[in-house]
């Protein structure tokens, strides 16, 4: 009953997506990305999201390093990193992550170190959550494609 398996997984995928939208984790820009995926670019969403993950983790490391500096923190530099993080998050539809960046940036503008630390923790948490959920989503999608008998290109 391959067809049924694929259908159930399709329902799972949509349920997860609906949940993520409802929670504000993702917004309509994510849907826009999905619309850009087709036979000519069948892995577009996961490709972009993987680039996003790679870049985000770099940014998070930089932010933590800056905040952990003993002497003082380079708020301006943090602001620059946050702008980048905000931009890329908005481009993939990562709404909650983006919103935390906005709050974080406000704290840097006030040179508020404690506020920045709190914001960084929240940001790391939100990012982790997003990453887990998107991995879950991609996994379901892969399984669904297999179940539907579609030749899914294997990524290394």
């Amino acid at each position, binding site marked *: 009953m391959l067809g049924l398996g694929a259908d159930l997984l399709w329902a799972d995928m949509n349920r997860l997506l609906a949940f993520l939208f409802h929670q504000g984790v993702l917004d309509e820009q994510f849907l*826009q990305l999905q619309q850009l995926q087709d036979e000519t670019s069948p892995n577009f969403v996961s490709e*972009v999201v993987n680039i*996003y993950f790679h870049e985000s983790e770099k940014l998070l490391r930089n932010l933590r390093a800056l905040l952990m500096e003993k002497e003082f923190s380079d708020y301006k530099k943090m602001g620059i990193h946050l*702008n980048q993080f905000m*931009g*890329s998050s*908005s*481009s993939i*539809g990562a709404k909650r992550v983006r919103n935390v960046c906005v709050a974080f940036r406000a704290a840097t503008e006030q040179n508020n170190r404690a506020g920045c630390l709190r914001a960084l923790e929240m940001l790391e948490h939100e990012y982790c959550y997003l990453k887990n959920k998107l991995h879950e989503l991609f996994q379901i999608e892969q399984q669904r494609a297999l179940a539907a008998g579609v030749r899914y290109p294997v990524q290394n």
Partner: protein
Amino acid sequence: MDTDSFVSFDHVSPEDSHEVHVLAVDDSLVDRKVIERLLKISACKVTAVDSGIRALQFLGLDEQRRTSESDGFVPDLKVDLIITDYCMPEMTGYELLKKIKESTMFREIPVVIMSSENILPRIDRCLEEGAEDFIVKPVKLSDVKRLKGYMTPKEVIKMRSQEDRRSDGYVNGGDGGVLEINNKRKLEEQDTSDVSLSPPSTSTLSSSPSVSSPSPSSSPTSSASVLASPIRRLKMTSTD
């Protein structure tokens, strides 16, 4: 292709037939991937670079190799639109816009600015400097569809010019490809009614004057689309 246009296709090679060529500039890899895909899916040929400096290098406008008309060297690039992020290190999109508009060779190429921030003075400044449009990120398919209205590949312009047989403003641009965009504007303006060029006047915050024409030789930059699109595109929240 319409059969009633009597055009010779001698100068059109099969590859670049009627595809618009967009130069996309953004320091964010994520955004470059997205804009690239948006453009490709809209049947555009894309060259994506990660900085204003690289964009200028691509156009041949960089410091190392100053290209001028007196050189006699005209790069056969056929760029129909430049779309650039505003916030970039080293050279902002605004600075890139200025450099392009200062160049006699490339000033007619429509330049669109993208920004994740909806800052009216910034938008006004870009429009005043000659930007065609200003898009608030994230960029969507509907934005790109609208952009396509600003640009027409050179070959189609040649066709239109020949069809309409308008001798005023028709430049025989064999290798001066960029000059033909001027054509397109003139053709369009003669079709549309005279529209004033003040930036979105609905913004009570902005008191900037009307958009001035960047060069005396060209007609005012394209009409109704400039008025309509930035207004629509602005998310007019008072808090932002």
